[in-house]
Every structure is written in structure tokens, then in C-alpha cells.
């Protein structure tokens, strides 16, 4: 039996096993039969086993260069380094769907294993929901996108190779990281649905999924960071985020999971927002499916999208419809059980701050989704009106359009700053109601520092209102975090004399969720600080010949010559650009163009930058003429940009502190 046929057979078995598992679990729950329920659980494990087997088969096919399999032939060649051969597994559409199934069944098995004693009554429903999702993806693999599809005639002997643009460190981890984030959201969704089906809608199901949501959020964040770094270092346009549909797709569930992680605290504390929380889980899961759909079906024009495919579009559309009807149907059915115990008492309460936070995050998600999909929607309308002129002729869908970054920035900037303000305000407000005296005690320091941070940059000739507002809010929020830590440390030391560091790590370890959360907030503040620098970005395009110089802000860029080199994969032309500040050479930038032998018409642009805490001097070579030495350059000064990456690292560090929260520790604020 060839690898190809063995692989296709395994996919068929995954499909069948998912049907069996759904059947056993539903029957088990209905008849309250522990044997059937256990059978379902074993079926879930077996599905994972099969998915792992199928995945190892495809990896083996890549390693052994089995070019009789179309997918292997498309995305690899024998000269590729070992590492890329393995990662080529998820380099294309078909393989990435199999990767989905692998991760999904793995997470499902882990979550069920961890919770099957504690939440016995939920388990059959969880297994059924998880397996129904597996069934959908296995069906896609089986009927539409078989990664093991072989060449029947004319079997090629060489592979096409992976696009060189994707052969990059960040690109190896960017997609799987987003995937981990996406796929793991199915677990909270399954638990939420199980809670609704079984009627056990107390806060328990959320305790067990909170960490999964945090886990998803961490991987979504890592994925987004890596995507940004990749764009910044590989694409050569001097930026890291352009509201590309594929990047947006990763951002959407990020917004809603942040909202959930905050609002779940209100439910734990005050017994409010039950419908809202379960809806956020549903929406987050739905957004991961929409995201997969947007990125994988090519429905939205994007440099990433994988080619047009209408079968895939219809299948995903139907699946999403089923999720919406099923999930929200359950919510409506269970509404009497989801009634709130507490009530909002004051606008100056932490609940209210969290509520506004949730509205803002949801607004962000709806806005980004709407703006991303709107052009596609118009196009669909045009097609429908053209196809059915009698029924729909009265509709004028208007012209197709493109929505670019300025539009997104225009609306997201105020939303972001409002969220930054809340980051500072929220933790300072008390639950239920904040008293006037308390307000003064909490807000005097941050307000003074915030105002100082707004005024100080004016003396550095910074005049952009957005930039100043951002600096001011960063200062305000930064001070609130420092104040919280300071007070916590003083309190610990007054109880028991101890060193400063000891008291601080005590805070982080004993009240992980609260202080870990503050560290996340600190990371957010640093990121906003970095974004504020965008207001003073310098961007220049110029042509230089060796020997010529160019003034770029406070720097001088001097062209010191061109070099031609080659290795076994590619030919490279590199420019040596000296970076001078006050007449001294501080660095030599080496932007380059690489021509891979495999894709000679598509040279890649290799960026070079001089990094400091204050700014990046960033150079990319757009075009080069060896005979004359003309070098076409894009030069940028990106102020404060490295604070974005630093902030992201701090944010992830804080999130890791939070992950350590023990289940019993739900009440540490």
C-alpha cells in the first residue's frame, strides 16, 4: 500500500470514527449509560490517534520526498532543509486542514482527560460537540481537500518547493501559533455548549475553560506578534500591520477572548452577565471558523489567501450557519437558567468598567470584521443582482471598493485609546461602588503623571494630537500600575518585614491573576507607547549610487558599495550603507535582494535595520542596477518601534503568570 492510499484511508477512518463518537456520546447522555459515554470518550482518543497517524504519514511523505502525492510535490522539494520539510506539513491549504484536525483532537483529548472526573455530567456533551467539529474538518479533508491525493498519471520526480518568502524563522511559527490559538477555542466552546445542554450553567464550566481561553489568547498573541515581525523584517515596507484580512482574522478572536477574560470575573464575583459570557465564547469560536474560512478560502482578496474555491466557501458558510443556529438556539432555550443574580449599582464600579471594556472590544471585533468583509459583501451582492435581475434588480450594490489602513486606523485609534484609558481606570475602581474619597486617593497620582506625560513631549517638538493623547494615557495607566504594585508591596511588608523583591514576587505568586493581569496591562502600555511613535515616523524613497549620501532625520546614510554573492540556493546583491550620526559611523546596514534559483523572477527583499531603544533606522533595497550602481532604497525612521515588541514580551510574561492560577484561586480579584 502506498503512503497516499494509506493516508486517504486514515482520513476516511477519522471521519467514520467521529460519527461513531458523536453517536455514542449522544446516546450515552440520552440513556445515562456510563458504558456508552465511556465509549464516546475512547472514540475521541482514538480519533486523536488516527489524526496523529495521518499527520506522521504526511510528514514521512515530506521527509522521503514522495512526490507522487500532489500536496507534497506542491509545497516541498528535495533540496529543502529538513526543518522546512517538516513545517511544509502546514504550508498549504490541505495540510493545514489536517493540522487543524490533529490539534483539535489533541486538545479535545487533553481537555476531556483533565475534566472527566470533575465535570462528569458535562463530558458526553463535550465529546459530542468536539467530535461534531472534527467531523466537519475530516469531511473537508475527505471530500474536498485530501492532502494525500496522488498524481494518477505523469508522476513528477521533483517538487516545486516552498515559497522562499515563507522560508523564514517567523513564518515557521506564525501560522501554527495562530492555529493553536484558533483551535484551542473549540474546547471552551464545547464546554459552554455542554453546560447549556445539560443545564449546569453555574460558574463551574467557566472555571475549567478560563485557562483554555487564556491559553488560546496567548497563542493568538504570539501568532500576531510573529506575523508583525515577519511583515516588518521580510516584506520591506517599513511597517508591521496593514489590516490585511488574514491578520485581521487572527485579531478578531483576540478581541473577544480579551473581553471574555474580563467579563468572566464579573460573573464569578457578582453572578451577572451569564448570557453575555457564553455568547462571547460562542462568538470567539465562530470567529475562529470565520478566520479559517477567510484565510483558507480566498474569499477575501488578500496576498495570503490560498486561491478561490467556491465549494469550500459554501461548505464553510453552511457550517457557520449550523453553529449560529445551534449555539444561540441553546442560549435562548436556557435563558431562564442564565438569569443574573446581581445588578449593576453604579457607573463608578469595576463591573461597569469591565462592561464598557466588553462593549469596546466587541465594537472593535464587529468593526474590523465588517470593514474586512464589506468589499466582499458588495461583490457578492453584485454577483447575485447580476444572476437574479428579476428578484433583486431593485438593489444597487454600488461599486466594489477597497478599504485600506487609513480607514481602519481612523476608527481603531480612538477605540484603542479609550481601551487604554480603561486599562488604567478599571483596576482602580472598587466592586459595586467607589466612594468619592477613594476616587481622590486612587486617581490623583496617575492624573498628575498623565498630564505631565502629555505636556513633556511638546517640548521635544512633538505636536501630533493623537501622539500626545497616547503619551498622556500611557503615563496615566503606567502610574496606576506602579501605584497598585507599590501599595501591594507596602502592605506585604507591613504584615511581615521582607525585602522589596521578595514582596513583589510574593504578590505575583500569591495573587497571580491580579498582578499577572497588571503585568499584561504594563505590556499593553508599552505597546501603545511604541505605537505613539508612529506619529513621528519618517519615510523616504531615494536612489543612491555608491559614494553618495542621503540625510534621513538626524542620520546620514552613505552608500558604500554593492556586493554580489551566492550560495547553493540563491544569488544575493547586498548594499553596504553606512549610518552616520554627528559625523560618526554608528552602524552599517546591509539591505539585499535575493534571487532564489527556484523562483528567479521573484527576488525577495531583505531588510536591514539599526535598532536602538529610541528608534529603528530601517532600509530595504527596492531595485538595483549593477552596471551603473544605481540603488533604489526605501528608508525609514521608526521611532519607539522596538517598544512594541518589548511590550508584547511583557504582556506574554504577565499572561504566563496568570496561567498559573489554581482553580481554587478564583477570588483573588
Amino acid at each position: 500500500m502506498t503512503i497516499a492510499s494509506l493516508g486517504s484511508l486514515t482520513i476516511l477512518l477519522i471521519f467514520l470514527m467521529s460519527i461513531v463518537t458523536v453517536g455514542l456520546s449522544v446516546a450515552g447522555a440520552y440513556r445515562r449509560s456510563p458504558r456508552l459515554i465511556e465509549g464516546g470518550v475512547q472514540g475521541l482518543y482514538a480519533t486523536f490517534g488516527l489524526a496523529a497517524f495521518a499527520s506522521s504519514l504526511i510528514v514521512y511523505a515530506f521527509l522521503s520526498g514522495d512526490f507522487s502525492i500532489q500536496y507534497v510535490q506542491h509545497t516541498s522539494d528535495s533540496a529543502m532543509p529538513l526543518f522546512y520539510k517538516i513545517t511544509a506539513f502546514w504550508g498549504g491549504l490541505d495540510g493545514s486542514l489536517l493540522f487543524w484536525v490533529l490539534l483539535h483532537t489533541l486538545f479535545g483529548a487533553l481537555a476531556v482527560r483533565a475534566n472527566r472526573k470533575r465535570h462528569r455530567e458535562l463530558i458526553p456533551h463535550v465529546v459530542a460537540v468536539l467530535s461534531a467539529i472534527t467531523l466537519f474538518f475530516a469531511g473537508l479533508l475527505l471530500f474536498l481537500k485530501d492532502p494525500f491525493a496522488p498524481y494518477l498519471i505523469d508522476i513528477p520526480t521533483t517538487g516545486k518547493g516552498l515559497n522562499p518568502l515563507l522560508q523564514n524563522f517567523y513564518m515557521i511559527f506564525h501560522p501554527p501559533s495562530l492555529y493553536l490559538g484558533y483551535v484551542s477555542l473549540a474546547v471552551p466552546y464545547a464546554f459552554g455548549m455542554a453546560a447549556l445542554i445539560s443545564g449546569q450553567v453555574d460558574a463551574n464550566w467557566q472555571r475549567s475553560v478560563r485557562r483554555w481561553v487564556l491559553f488560546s489568547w496567548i497563542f493568538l498573541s504570539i501568532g500576531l506578534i510573529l506575523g508583525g515581525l515577519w511583515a516588518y523584517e521580510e516584506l520591506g515596507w517599513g511597517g508591521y500591520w496593514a489590516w490585511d484580512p488574514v491578520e485581521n482574522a487572527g485579531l478578531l478572536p483576540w478581541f473577544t477572548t480579551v473581553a471574555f477574560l474580563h467579563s468572566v470575573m464579573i460573573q464569578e464575583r457578582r453572578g451577572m452577565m451569564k448570557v453575555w459570557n457564553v455568547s462571547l465564547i460562542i462568538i470567539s469560536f465562530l470567529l475562529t471558523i470565520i478566520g479559517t474560512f477567510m484565510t483558507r478560502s480566498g474569499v477575501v482578496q488578500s496576498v495570503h489567501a490560498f486561491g478561490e474555491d467556491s465549494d469550500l466557501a459554501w461548505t464553510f458558510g453552511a457550517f457557520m450557519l449550523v453553529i449560529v443556529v445551534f449555539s444561540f438556539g441553546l442560549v435562548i432555550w436556557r435563558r431562564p437558567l442564565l438569569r443574573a443574580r446581581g445588578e449593576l449599582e453604579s457607573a463608578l464600579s469595576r463591573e461597569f468598567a469591565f462592561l464598557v471594556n466588553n462593549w469596546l472590544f466587541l465594537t472593535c471585533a464587529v468593526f474590523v470584521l465588517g470593514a474586512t468583509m464589506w468589499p466582499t459583501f458588495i461583490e457578492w451582492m453584485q454577483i447575485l443582482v447580476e444572476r437574479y435581475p428579476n428578484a433583486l434588480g431593485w438593489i444597487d450594490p454600488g461599486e466594489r471598493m477597497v478599504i485600506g489602513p487609513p480607514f481602519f486606523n481612523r476608527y481603531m485609534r480612538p477605540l484603542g485609546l479609550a481601551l487604554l484609558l480603561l486599562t488604567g481606570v478599571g483596576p482602580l475602581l472598587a466592586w459595586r461602588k467607589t466612594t468619592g474619597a477613594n476616587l481622590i486617593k486612587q486617581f490623583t497620582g496617575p492624573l498628575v503623571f498623565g498630564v505631565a506625560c502629555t505636556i513633556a513631549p511638546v517640548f521635544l517638538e512633538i505636536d501630533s494630537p493623537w501622539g500626545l493623547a497616547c503619551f498622556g494615557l500611557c503615563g496615566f495607566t503606567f502610574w496606576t500600575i506602579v501605584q497598585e504594585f507599590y501599595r501591594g508591596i507596602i502592605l506585604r511588608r507591613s504584615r511581615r518585614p521582607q525585602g522589596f523583591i521578595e514582596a513583589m514576587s510574593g504578590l505575583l505568586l500569591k495573587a497571580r491573576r491580579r498582578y499577572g493581569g497588571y503585568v499584561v496591562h504594563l505590556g499593553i502600555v508599552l505597546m501603545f507607547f511604541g505605537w505613539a511613535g508612529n506619529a513621528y515616523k519618517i519615510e523616504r524613497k531615494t536612489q543612491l549610487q555608491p559614494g553618495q549620501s542621503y540625510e534621513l532625520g538626524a542620520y546620514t546614510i552613505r552608500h558604500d558599495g554593492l556586493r554580489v554573492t551566492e550560495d547553493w540556493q540563491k544569488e544575493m546583491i547586498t548594499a553596504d550603507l553606512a549610518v552616520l550620526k554627528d559625523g560618526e559611523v554608528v552602524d552599517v546596514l546591509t539591505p539585499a535582494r535575493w534571487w532564489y534559483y527556484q523562483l528567479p523572477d521573484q527576488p525577495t527583499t531583505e531588510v536591514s535595520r539599526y535598532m536602538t531603544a529610541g528608534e529603528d533606522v530601517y532600509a530595504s533595497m527596492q531595485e538595483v542596477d549593477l552596471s551603473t550602481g544605481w540603488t533604489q532604497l526605501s528608508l525609514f525612521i521608526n521611532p519607539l518601534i522596538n517598544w512594541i515588541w518589548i511590550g508584547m514580551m511583557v504582556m506574554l510574561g504577565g499572561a504566563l503568570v496568570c496561567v498559573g492560577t489554581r482553580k481554587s484561586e478564583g477570588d483573588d480579584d
Partner: protein
Amino acid sequence: MALPIATKAVLALVVAGAVSYLVLADDGEGVLEYVYAEKVVASPSDYAGRTIKVHGTVVPGTIRQKVGSSGDYTFEIESEGERLAVHFTNMVPDTFAEGGEVVLTGQLTEDGGRFDSDEMAAKCPSKYEEEPMANR
């Protein structure tokens, strides 16, 4: 929600004010009409003078570059058999090639004869994944 009515009213006002300010002050930056070349050729007067995006395929053999510069091109794009002359004044992306699909941002001249552009997105299907049919 048991907030006082005055609080609710203030909140509603703030939200409505912020949203309407943002929407009313929106100058449409970042939102551009997106048309295929044949539509522009068919009714140039509908598009002349405004900034739009035009989609087409670069006609092989029409790319000319001004001598001594590296950012001044003329070429033609085509869709549905209609051709549109383009004057492009910027650096071209790595993926710009004859027969490749491009989306250009710019303005049509008043007489409709030429599209002046300085921004290009060039899509090369082979870059991310081959068309599945091309190999079978």
C-alpha cells in the same frame, strides 16, 4: 441595569457624540472604488479625476522603463480584452511581471486615455500556491 437615568443619558450622549463626530468627519480616506480595467475603458468619464483602484493583467511586451531611472514605467493592463495605458511613477514590487495581475491606485487622466498611478499591488498566483488545475 439599575443605573440612574441621568447616568445613562450622559453615556448615550457621549457615545452618540463620539460616533457621529467620527463618521461625519470621515473624509473617505482609505476607502477607494475598485474596478476592472474594462469598466474604466468603457466609460472613462465616470472615473476621470478621482483616485480609484484598477485591476488588470499586465500585457506582455508593453513594459517600458524610462532610461536612467528606476521608478518610471509605462505599460498596458488588460481585462476582458480591453486595454488601458498606464503611467506608473514609483518603484514596482518584487512580484510585478508581464502577464501578472496588478491592482493600481491612481487617477485617470481627464481625456480618459491614460491611468496615472504611483501605488501597485502585484499578485503572482504562483507566489503562495499554484492554481490547482495548472498541474493536472
